[in-house]
Each structure stands twice: as C-alpha cells, then as structure tokens.
C-alpha cells in the first residue's frame, strides 16, 4: 500500500495522483530510478496541455521503462511484447486518429530489439509520440550491455569493458524522417516537460529521448553508486545542440548532446491514408 505522506507530497506538487491507477501503486521502479521523473514530466505535460486522459492511448513494450506509463497511467494502456510497442501503436493510431497515442519505453526495447519499428515509424511520419528512456542498460534482466551503453563501460555482459559503440538514437531518428526530435536528461526536467508538450502537439512522428539514471544496474558498476552522482555526470557532460555543432567528434566523445534536433512539417501517415480513402471511395457512393 502506498505511504500517505508520499501521496500528499505528489498531490501538492503536480496533482499527479489524479493521473495514476491507484491499484497499480506503489511503483515497481527502484529507489533513485529516473523513471519516476519521466512519469512526473509526462503527467505534468498532459496536465498543462489539458488533455483528457480518455483521449490518450499509451503503448509500451518490455523492460523497466515500459512500466513508467503502463499500467500506472490512468488511460487506455497496451503493454506489448519486447520491442514491438511502436508497431502495435501504429495499428492503434490508424483506428483512433483523433486520440493521442504515446509510446513510453526503454532504449533496449525501442532502439535495440525494436529499432526497425522506430526507424520506419519515423520514416512514415505517423502521428505517434515516443518517449524513449535511455538508461544505457538492460535493467530488468540484471544489467546487461545495451546498444546504447557507452564505449568502455562495465556491465554484467561486458565485465572487462564495452568494446562496442553506442547508437545515437535522436540523430538517427531525426535523419529517418521524424517531425520532431529532442533529447534531454532527467537533470533537465523543465526542458523535458516542454519538449513532451511540443512532441504531443506535433502532427507527425515525435521522439523525446530522455537520458535517465539507473544507479542500480549501470551506476554502481561504473563508479556512480547514487542517483546524485549520475545526475551530476549528466549535467557535467551535457552539450547543447548549437554548441555541439562547433565541436569535433573527439571533443564530443562521452558527451550528451541535448536540445531539439529537428522540428518540421511533413505529410503525416494517417492523414494521408484518410485522404487516399476519401479520394478512392468518395464521391462514388
């Protein structure tokens, strides 16, 4: 059962409790996890935008970050197989073009096993918002190396050091055709809320990548035992997009480029499908 003091604190800050399924609490996330910050930022963005949760469908995959919104957020929630949330969400959005369809899941889920769906949803520019929580690690399974793990980092399956390079998700998805892409860390909460709002108001595919701390599986194996140490690491190494443009690849090694990567208008899939249906079927009945 939930501790009353905590409930009061949440209410006094954001009235976040109104957006949660009480029967799903307490959260299964570890103390110090960045997932709570993401849920808070998302609920706050929904609140500020005045979106009725009845107009929201949240889709997630498998892993710690998939639990951020599902089942906790009080909306229609679809908790799917590993990596496939965006493909499921594609069917949902086609069937419910007037609803906001949001995918919240992790880096391993969306950019590892499900990377192809992420890439192609961006290419199609379907009106889905993806909040990708990047904690550099497969947390739920015990801390194995991920496609986002920094070069040289230690994980349970890179006990000597990671010899692979991480995927730069935001850069790839901006190039793939998304309408909106931004990256922040859990240390940039207000910018994060702002970007989630922009993403949800974008007609087209929107990605908000959130660099998030996993002190339990990532931090403690990489000399950052506490959430505070990880947040400090994010702040120390964050570089705004504008500044990063003037830096060379060596200078950017180990940095987190933060800010908006792309913001553009581009024909959106479901709208185009509906136009096509009107053209082919319309006027003939």
């Amino acid at each position: 059962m939930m501790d009353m003091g905590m409930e009061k604190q949440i209410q006094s800050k954001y009235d976040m409790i109104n957006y949660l399924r009480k029967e799903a609490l307490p959260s299964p996330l570890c103390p110090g996890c960045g997932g709570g910050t993401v849920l808070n930022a998302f609920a706050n963005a929904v609140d500020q935008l005045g979106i009725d949760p009845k107009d929201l469908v949240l889709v997630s995959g498998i892993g710690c970050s998939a639990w951020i919104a599902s089942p906790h957020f009080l909306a229609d929630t679809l908790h799917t197989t590993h990596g496939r949330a965006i493909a499921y969400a594609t069917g949902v959005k086609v069937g419910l073009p007037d609803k906001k369809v949001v995918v919240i899941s992790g880096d391993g889920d969306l950019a590892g096993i499900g990377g192809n769906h992420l890439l192609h949803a961006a290419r199609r520019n379907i009106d889905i918002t993806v909040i990708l929580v990047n904690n550099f690690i497969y947390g739920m399974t015990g801390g194995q190396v991920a496609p986002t793990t920094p070069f040289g980092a230690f994980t349970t399956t890179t006990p000597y050091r990671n010899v692979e390079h991480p995927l730069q998700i935001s850069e790839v998805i901006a190039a793939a055709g998304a309408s909106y892409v931004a990256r922040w860390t859990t240390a940039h909460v207000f910018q994060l809320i702002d970007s989630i709002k922009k993403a949800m108001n974008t007609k087209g595919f929107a990605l908000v990548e959130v660099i998030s701390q996993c002190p339990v599986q990532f931090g403690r194996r990489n000399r950052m035992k506490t959430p505070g140490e990880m947040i400090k690491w994010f702040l120390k190494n964050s570089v705004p997009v504008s500044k990063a443009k003037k830096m060379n690849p060596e200078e950017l090694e180990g940095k987190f480029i933060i800010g908006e990567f792309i913001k553009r208008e581009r024909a959106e899939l479901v709208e185009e499908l509906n136009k096509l249906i009107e053209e082919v079927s319309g006027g003939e009945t």
Partner: protein
Amino acid sequence: MRFMIIKGNEEEQIRLLRKHYPKGNYFMQGDEAIAFGALFAGCRFYAGYPITPASEIAETMARELPKVKGYYIQMEDEIGSIAAVVGASWTGLKSMTATSGPGFSLMQENLGLGIMTETPLVLVDVQRSGPSTGQATKGAQGDFFQARWGTHGDHPIIAISPLSVEDSFWETIRAFNLSEKLRIPVVLLADGVIGHTREQIRIPDPEEVEILYRKLPKNEEEARFPFGDVHGDLIPPMPLFGKGYFTHVTGSTHKESGMRDVYTPEVHDRLVRRLHRKIEEHKDEILKWEEHYTDDAEILVVSWGVSSRPSLGAVLKARKEGIKAGLFVPKTVHPFPERRMRELGKRVNTILVPEMNLGQVILEVQRHVNDEVFVKGVNKIGGVPLTVEEVFREIKAASSAERSRHRSAD
C-alpha cells in the same frame, strides 16, 4: 453491428460492397478469394509484408480496401504486421494479416499476445514448402502443427483449412466470425496451390452473408472486466480503446480486470484454463468437416486442404471399381474433430492420410483410433500436389490387402 468503420455507416458499407463487387460469377485465385472474403466479413484493416505465395492477398487488399473505406498498411516486417493488427483490433477494426512459412514463424510471439489478450484477428498462412526458405513458390501442408503449437506456452487456437478458391472466400468469412464471436485469433491455413489456382467463384450479395461482430460491454461495470466471464459463456465483452474505459491490456498474466498478476498461481491457472474452456465449450460451433461415402466405407481416406481434392477423385474412382472407400475432410483442423474421427475409426480397418508433408494430420488421426486400425500416410513433398492416381493406387493396394486378409481369415 456487422461492420466497425471509422467513416460512414453499415448501409453505406453494403452499398459500397454491392457497387464494387456485384454478385455473380468471378474467375480468381485463392489468394484473391481470401481477400474478398475478408472484405465481405467486414475486415477494414490489413497490415502485412510481402511474401510468396501470399503477396496477392496484400495486393488485393491494398487495391480494394480504400474503396470500402478500409486501411492498408505495409509494415517493415511480419512481426510489426501482426502487432499493428492487434493494435487496430483493440480500436474496433476487424483486422487481418497474411503471410507464408517464414513470416508465420516471425509472427508467432505476437500471435501469442493476441491469444493471451483475447484479441479478434485473422492470420492467413498460405503454406509453402519448408523448412526455412524451402521452395518459396511451391505449395505445401507442413504448417499444421506450427499453427497449433507455434507460439510458446499452453494455449488454444482455431485453425481453418479451405479446399478450393470458392471455399477460401467462405472460410475466410467463417474465420472472422469465429474470431469475433469467441475473441480469439483464428489462423486460416491455406496453401500455395489453392492460393495460386484460378477457379470460378460466386460472389454473393452482402445481405446473404452472415457477419458477426465482437461482444461489447453494455455498461461501465461490464467494461471493468475485459477478461472476466461476466456473461457465463466464458467470452468477456471487449472494452475497446478510445471509449473512456481506461482499459489495460497486457500479454502478462492478468486478473479479470486486466491488471497484471504474475505471482498468484490461481490467477494464471484461472485465466489460461478459461481460455482453453472457451474453445472447448464452443466446439460445436467451431468444428466443421466434409464427408463423402463414409456410411458404408471400409477404407477411409482422411485428408485436408488441397490434398482433399485428389483424395475425393481417388475415392470416386475406387467406388466405380467397387471398392468401398470413403473420405473425411476436417475443415476446422484445430481443434481437430476428434469425436467424429473416433466414430469413423471404429467402423473401418484401414485409414489412409494423404497430405503434402511427411506426416502431420496422420498423428492426430492415430491419436483417435484404435491400435487395430491400420493407418497409413500418403505423403508427398517437393511442391507438386498429390494426384488422383497416386491416392487411388494406395486405396487399391489397401483394398487388395483387406481382401487377402479376409481370405486368410476364411
């Protein structure tokens, strides 16, 4: 309600079907007949990925769906295709995907989610020769057990196998109806031979076609139990997304409310047993088969899908020669019509099982007949269907063996 569409209404849908597909005789492939069956069944969402010999289903749906205000989307792979189909089904759209062996393998995990979340959908597997890439352009019947056990864990499934192009049209409609009525994915186990064969088919008037739609919750209270047996028929009403019910759907073990509970043994036991009982207790509506000359048959041929056609030819030929042969053709292949199989098995001494594989349905047959009955497979692989002569030869050989057995008994 027959159709669930985003724009327009049911009368408009019937008008559109009549306008674009006036009743009468058509000449088309099995694949096309499956697509038209889906259109008449009310399918208005298709997600797929090209694969031989199923691509014509996607092409037909891409061309025809917009005419009846439906959605076609080509996904990046088969995994995404069935995922999108599950997602669309929860918004109320009748949804389908079609593939062949390799794609069917890729779809298995999400098919499992469809079963666990009781999502109506139709998955067409136009069987081709495997394993692996095999003979991509050749038909086969090697996916009988993949359809039954392809996805992991205990689960029920319904699979239907059509016999001809016209049968493909009607059995696709039946697949949708069973899927909608019972809230379960239905596999249409077609094959590349019928899929690519052109035959005459009669397209009916839409009013001639019985079409079912899933049970929806009557009120907020019913909607609170998307996985509960609220009506005592084991089929929960389906609270669709976007209706304000705050439905939670997960592939994890869940309570009647939809909320995950993977720790309580009773919750898992109750859920998975209900899924099985739902199919078991509606078996009379699910099972379907054909019989020819079984009343006095001494030699029974049990065949399915494309192989049932040369089997019928062989039985007719045997009858002309005075051999008492009969034919039993399950059209619902999962669940298998085991009671009827047992009854027929008691009356004959020999059963022949022609199929385009190295022996799959024969294992079902053997399960349901006594050890004394001689059960023999008539198996052919390599992509060429069995011929009347090949099946007849086996009937004749069995008949001679019977006679000599009778003689020695005398």
